[in-house]
């Protein structure tokens, strides 16, 4: 046959048009309201942290990829997203060198050393945050009560979860639930803008960028476990609504735990993952030394992802083949002639 100058490739011969960049840009788009809220309350400081964080994450990725002689993939936007997420859970006053260090550790150690996008077992933004949090000299910068002391925002600049830890449910009575919902609470640049995050999260779910099972079961986990605590002893533990509206739960449910690489992909695995994240969040809030537990819960559960992904019906091997032997032929002929 005469070959024409045409293209040959394996099936299928068309594509839905989805791209990795689409995923990243949707994330950024969904986070714009939360960013705007942070910029509105904390002004230039917030913009400074966000810009520095995105830039340093992208620089870190480009740098390590050029050192390792791998293709440079900062254009896919995944580094920008993880830089942005890190910025949104930090207070606006955090020194820039910390932002840069956290991003470099997150991107280089937690992401690229494991093989880059999709192969990282832990979310780079969360690893960066955790490094600051557990380093003694730096942990103070993440104490929202101290960090936000110089800002004038028009609402009480006390970190609700820290108050809960120190004084119990009696102390949080002056936080209006509506204020919390509208984002009038001390916290990270974007992580306290609950309403904005909810809108962005629902947008992501509808676009199919994140899988709805994870946020839904995350919130369910928080409500169920906090509800159990609360019903048993409401003078010691806060109500489930408060747990959902305060701290990082909303950003955790929709943006941190749903990171593709560090969450399961099979339905029941996702449900178990989300529920355990939510449950662990409440447990850490109630019993650990840290006021909030979302990030540690996400990090911890990410380690169980390979295991959780095994929660799936086992695939069968192909069926046994009945052979065509001379014996089978004569047998079936006998059967047929007899009937």
């Amino acid at each position, binding site marked *: *046959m*005469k*070959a*024409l*100058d*045409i*293209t*040959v*490739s*394996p*099936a*299928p*011969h*068309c*594509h*839905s*048009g*989805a*791209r*990795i960049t*689409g*995923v990243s840009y949707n994330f950024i788009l969904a986070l714009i309201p939360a960013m705007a809220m942070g910029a509105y309350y904390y002004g230039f400081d917030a913009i400074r942290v966000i810009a520095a964080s995105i830039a340093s994450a992208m620089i870190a990725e480009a740098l390590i990829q050029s050192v390792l002689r791998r293709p440079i993939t900062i254009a896919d936007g*995944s580094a920008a997203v993880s830089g942005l997420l890190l910025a949104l859970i930090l207070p606006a006053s955090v020194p820039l060198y910390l932002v840069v260090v956290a991003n470099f550790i997150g991107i280089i150690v937690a992401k690229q050393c494991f*093989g*880059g*996008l*999709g*192969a990282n077992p832990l979310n780079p933004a969360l690893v960066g945050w955790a490094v600051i949090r557990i380093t003694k000299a730096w942990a103070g910068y993440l104490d929202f009560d101290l960090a936000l002391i110089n800002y004038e925002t028009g609402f009480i600049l006390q970190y609700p979860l820290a108050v809960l830890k120190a004084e119990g449910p009696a102390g949080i009575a002056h936080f209006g639930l509506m204020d919390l919902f509208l984002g009038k609470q001390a916290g990270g640049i974007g992580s306290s803008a609950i309403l904005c995050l909810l809108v962005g999260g629902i947008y992501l*779910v*509808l*676009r*199919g*960028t994140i*899988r*709805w099972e994870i946020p839904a079961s995350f919130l369910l986990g928080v409500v169920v476990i906090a509800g159990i605590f609360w019903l048993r002893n409401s003078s010691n533990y806060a109500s489930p609504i408060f747990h959902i509206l305060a701290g990082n739960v909303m950003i955790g449910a929709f943006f941190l735990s749903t990171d*593709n*690489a560090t969450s*399961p*992909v*099979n*339905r029941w695995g996702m449900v178990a993952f989300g529920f355990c994240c939510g449950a662990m969040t409440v447990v850490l809030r109630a019993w650990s030394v840290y006021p909030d537990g979302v990030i540690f819960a996400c990090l911890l559960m990410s380690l169980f992802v390979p295991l959780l*992904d095994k929660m*799936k*019906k086992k*695939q*069968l*091997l*192909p*069926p*046994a*083949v*009945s*052979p*065509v032997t001379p014996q*089978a*032929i004569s047998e*079936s*002929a006998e059967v*047929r002639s007899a009937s």
Partner: protein
Amino acid sequence: MGLRSFFGILPPKLYYKDVSAPIEALPVPEKITLLWYRRTHSDLAVRVGTKVETGQDLARNGRGPFVSTVTGRVEEASTFLGVDSREYLAVQIRADQKDSFDPSVTSVAGLSETQPQTLRTGVNRAGFTALRSIIRDPRVWPTVDCLIISALDLDPFSIVNQQTFRDNPEQVEAAIELLARTTEASQCVLAVPDNLADIASKVSTGAATVAMVPPVYPNGLPEILAKKYGAGLLMKTYDAGFAGNTVVVSLEHALAMVNSLQSGRPMLEKTVTLSNGQDGKLRNFRVRIGTPVGEILKRASVEVQPKGKLILNGIMRGYSCFSDEQPITATTESVHVQSPSEVFFFQNTQCTNCGKCNSICPVDLEVNILGRLSEYGIFNKCRGLGVENCIECGLCAYVCPARRPLVHFMTLAKQGIKTVTDEPANMEEALACTACGPSCPAIRLFDFDTESDKEDSPKV
């Protein structure tokens, strides 16, 4: 091909086309090519230069049937290496315009009282029909729990069976009756796409129940029909025998089979849908089996542009050919032409673990893991995850945002399992498979610069 909606929470839906296009008959071409899978010269009863008649069995005694679809002279018989590293045979016949039928081919007398085994022998001899691959020896016949006659097509861009149903609703009953007897199936189903409900309501179907099937890909694939509307498992033949409990026959093949048994003539013609990306128009053509696809393109004045693509058997499961001399076979359903701008290139990126492929896979495989395992040649683990159940529907690769060639990986894994029995020791051999088909001149899997390898494409 903007088939994706803005809201991605639901998986994208590929609808079968709901259009009617009259079937245009093409004259017998000057030259036809008949393909015979896994055979060599020694299986042939004819030589170059032999004169053959329409319907004549070209196979050496007992190895056939391998039926000539035209009257003419054998011009060339060549072998080539096929998909599974086995030899395939291509016989070219220069055709006369007038058919003279082989007198040894006669109809089965008294169809209505014939024994199933006689019917199966008739079907077997008729050559190119769907059941033939199962009826290797008409005396051995598996128990068939369910027979499905499908008026659905295999690809979103094919309307062959739909059109057959629109054109010949009155013949359906006879086909059901005869096929039910031939297969000795305990249950019969006529699968009809939802959009043809009004025709289906007028058709008398005899013993068969009618299943209305939503016209969404991959519902028309035999494996899916067997799973959803049949007894569960599509019947397939393997080297050693067969497995499964449901037989699926396309409506076109079913009618052709009835025709064959009544007239004694084998299936000589095949209807194919021609579509192209530019105007999206679908046209149906009826051609002799063995007609080069170029003839159809010429008749429809459709041209394959340089660097464009010529796809046989559909955009989802089909294969792209490198030559317009590729013949239409009894199972060719459609011809699709893409312009260079529509050609889609897979990318050599790693999986981002987004899970889109898992959630869309109709047989519920862990495609993300399988893709990675197959890429690195760990085929034994692929087997444990059930890669052999993959029906190559193409949906995983269709939705993958990383644009990985997932179907290719699945095929590779299946091929690898056959070649490599344990750890990847025989990796080289497995990777040297020719799973991308007999027609690949240069593996343009990725968007590499392939200018230089144009010259050394293999000649078939």
